[in-house]
């Protein structure tokens, strides 16, 4: 069947039946969510277990079950590998992993996939695991990729049932209250796993620092936690800030950032109370910095900035350029430190951030957002999941959630990377539909979605280089001969869910080249 974007979607993918994407806000649900597990508590219970093996034992984790994790330690995470290694040592097989994201540090999962300890992955497959799967590495079922908000929704709706949630925390008390803000190795918010803790059949907090009761802030709460395991190491905070968090020095990229910030300045949203999403990536960081400079010059005080917290956002808060930071995950140590001392630096969980099946999303309160792209097309669709050679390499992150919510979604991307054109007639994979994308900024100029004539008029008035997207494409195409094109077979490697649980696209296995 074809979905609303004309993408061919199978009726079933693996063992799941598929509902096709029908439009950004077409799906409307009512009724009740999936039930949470129930357990009564009595005084005097001891929740502390001596080891991960003990936790695996008493939670009743068995072959074929689902275990979940958060990614707040990013490249520095030490918990996912420790837990899966322990499962392997105990002879478990056929596990389904349900992480909020994976990183390069989890490359050794490939061995566990090869040996059959892990047979399915639900979740963003960044880096080496994604590369392995799309190069023919076998999972028992195709992967499902979801946005941050979409993952939360999938748990609440019962689409994904978690058997055991393992939640890394830099500090916890013996009764299960846990956080990532305090302790010797803080990583920032760990609220990605709040919903896991509430819905998992069993919840285990894994910490390297046991604090007196009550450990706070109460990110993960005692009422959701069955067991606590103390280990030597949960993660290395030094590795939270990965390479994507360095300010770019490339003139072309700085130009993109400058134009993106100029576009926001020229928009009707540039006034007191301006709210925007920053985020990681050299261009987004630079755009945020330029926007901050413009706000300072125009004496504008922003309402809130949202995103992975960064040094630049903290500086804006301290300078009084913005009233609040809504922070879902910390992207550098300065953001982590600020969470502990700045009351206006507020922890945000993905449900509050972006859960479509809820009574409100913080992303809907955004005026503007800067987001990246691996590919864009002339219909303003964006791909952040696959490379032009068809390989699955990145997760969705908050891309869909932010684009769907912000009044002005700005995609920043170079028109060409090396010999790889970025603007195509049709993206390899749709992550985010053109319906929710307003502006694409490249170093060659700014393309405005035809439905945003109002923004186009503002940009022209401000003297910004507004260009037709087909013109930008033609200019970049003039620099390189056409690429070889992958020929996709029928076999589905991964399903890309839209944030409402419908399937917006699938990633198929590459079978040849033309």
């Amino acid at each position: 069947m074809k979905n609303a974007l004309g993408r061919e979607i199978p009726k079933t993918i693996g063992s799941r039946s598929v509902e096709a994407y029908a439009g950004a806000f077409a799906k409307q649900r009512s009724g009740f969510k999936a039930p949470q597990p129930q357990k009564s508590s009595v005084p005097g219970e001891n929740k502390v277990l001596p080891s991960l093996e003990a936790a695996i034992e008493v939670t009743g984790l068995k072959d074929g079950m689902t275990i979940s994790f958060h990614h707040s330690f990013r490249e520095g995470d030490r918990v996912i590998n420790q837990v899966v290694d322990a499962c392997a040592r105990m002879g478990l097989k056929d596990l389904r992993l349900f992480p909020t994201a994976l990183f390069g540090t989890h490359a050794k999962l490939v061995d566990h996939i090869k040996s059959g300890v892990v047979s399915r992955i639900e979740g963003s497959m960044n880096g080496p695991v994604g590369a392995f799967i799309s190069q023919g590495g076998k999972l028992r079922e195709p992967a499902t990729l979801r946005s941050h908000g979409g993952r939360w929704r999938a748990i609440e709706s019962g689409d994904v049932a978690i058997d055991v949630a393992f939640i890394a925390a830099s500090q916890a008390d013996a009764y299960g209250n846990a956080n990532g803000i305090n302790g010797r190795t803080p990583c920032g918010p760990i609220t990605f796993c709040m919903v896991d803790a509430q819905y998992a059949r069993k919840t285990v907090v894994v910490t390297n620092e046991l604090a007196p009761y009550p450990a706070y802030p109460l990110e993960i709460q005692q009422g959701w936690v069955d067991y606590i395991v103390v280990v030597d190491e949960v993660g290395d905070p030094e590795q939270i800030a990965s390479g994507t968090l360095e300010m770019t020095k490339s003139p072309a990229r700085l130009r993109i950032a400058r134009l993106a910030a100029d576009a926001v300045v020229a928009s009707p949203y540039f006034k007191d109370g301006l709210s925007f999403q920053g985020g990681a990536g050299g261009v987004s960081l630079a755009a945020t910095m330029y926007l901050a400079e413009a706000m300072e010059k125009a004496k504008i005080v922003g309402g809130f900035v949202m995103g992975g917290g960064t040094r630049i956002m903290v500086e804006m808060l301290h300078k009084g350029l913005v009233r609040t930071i809504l922070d879902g995950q910390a992207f550098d140590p300065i953001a982590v430190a600020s969470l502990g001392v700045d009351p206006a630096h507020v922890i945000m969980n993905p449900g509050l951030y972006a859960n479509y099946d809820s009574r409100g999303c913080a992303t809907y309160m955004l005026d503007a957002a800067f987001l990246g792209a691996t590919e864009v097309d002339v219909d303003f669709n964006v791909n952040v999941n696959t490379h032009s050679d068809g390989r699955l390499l990145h997760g969705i992150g908050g891309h869909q959630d932010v684009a769907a919510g912000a009044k002005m979604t700005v995609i920043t991307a170079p028109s060409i990377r090396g010999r790889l054109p970025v603007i195509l007639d049709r993206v390899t994979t749709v992550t985010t539909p053109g319906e929710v994308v307003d502006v694409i900024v490249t170093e060659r100029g700014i393309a405005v979605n035809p439905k945003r004539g109002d923004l186009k008029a503002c940009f022209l008035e401000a003297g910004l280089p507004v260009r037709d997207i087909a013109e930008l494409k033609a200019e970049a195409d003039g620099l390189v001969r056409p690429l070889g094109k992958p020929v996709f077979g029928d076999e589905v490697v991964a399903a890309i869910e839209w944030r409402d649980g419908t399937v917006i696209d699938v990633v198929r296995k590459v079978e040849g080249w033309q």
Partner: protein
Amino acid sequence: MPNEIVAGSDAKGDCRVNVTPGRALAIAVASDDPHLFERGIREVVDETLAKLGRVKATVSVADKGALDYVLAARVEAAVRLAFPEIPAIAPKVRRRPSEHDAPRRSRLYAPGNNPRILVGIELHGADCVLVDLEDSVPPGEKAAARVLVKHLLGAIDFPNEVWVRINPLALGGADDVREVILARPHGVALPKAESRDDVVALSKELAKAEQAFGAPLGSTWIMPILETAKGVLHAEEIAAADPRVAVVAFGAEDFTRDVGARRTSESLLFARSMIVAAAKAAGVQASDTVYADIDDEAGLAVEAHLARDLGFDGKGAIHPGQIPALHAAFTPSGKEMDEARKIVAAAEEAEARGIGAIAIGGKMIDRPVLERARRVVRLSDRLSRKESR
């Protein structure tokens, strides 16, 4: 054993081409992703080799994300180094016309043998992009660089002016001229110009090259760069040396070394004033030296305004981020433009009525003031035409 020749590098955005003369033509292509890139790369290599004549050699191309014009340039450079008798390729060129006194508020330097930095160099709004073959290109790369610059100029439709800084004529500059003239730069910058003869010699080379390659005679401007004590002292004869001279530029880095000065606004004042006076006496523009600290925006703005106050028409930039500050300093203000228009209008009216003296509000307008006003009006007209493009 035949000698292996190499052009290009393994840097991102570049490619390395090895040519080993042999019995027959053999082509090998390697890239980061053969499926995606190999066919396109082969097409470019084949077409370039066809233009050069099918050489008897093994040509190996290792690509690191080079654009088509970079690939063509590297193949041409390596083949011609191996077979010096093969004539240069003349690229198809689309070049917008320029004028003797086109706005040149900013001249953006770009290293001529660094494809990664050259990508998109035309997009930063510089009035004048100055691709460098001199100081930023190591001696061993000069030949490959001039071929790359030619292909860059052939492939890119520069929205404003594009110039090439060649080497001094005796140090390869003549070869630079013969190569780059094929891609029709708006002008050629001559480093370390020290005398009228230096400029005249370049003008003759340009004339020869223009005639040889069918370019209109006299269509290439010259920018002498004065960066030695001798050059500054001879500013007057240099600026007036040839009708091709459109702008005289100052190079403070070499100048301070040459005279043993420390770089302060005071120590450069004589040279700057000398150059401005010489340029204006010859009816050409003056362009100030670059500001080396790319992170010091405030310092750049101060120096640009100082240069503007001294009479310079523009200033060099070593990073695109410096361009807005230069344009802010060298664009006449709205008030200046209005006054200039009033003066020019009064002059036209006076002329129409056959009156010799011009007055506005009872105040007499001198001839130099009128000339200055006319320059401001011309500049502002050109800038507004540029804006509307």
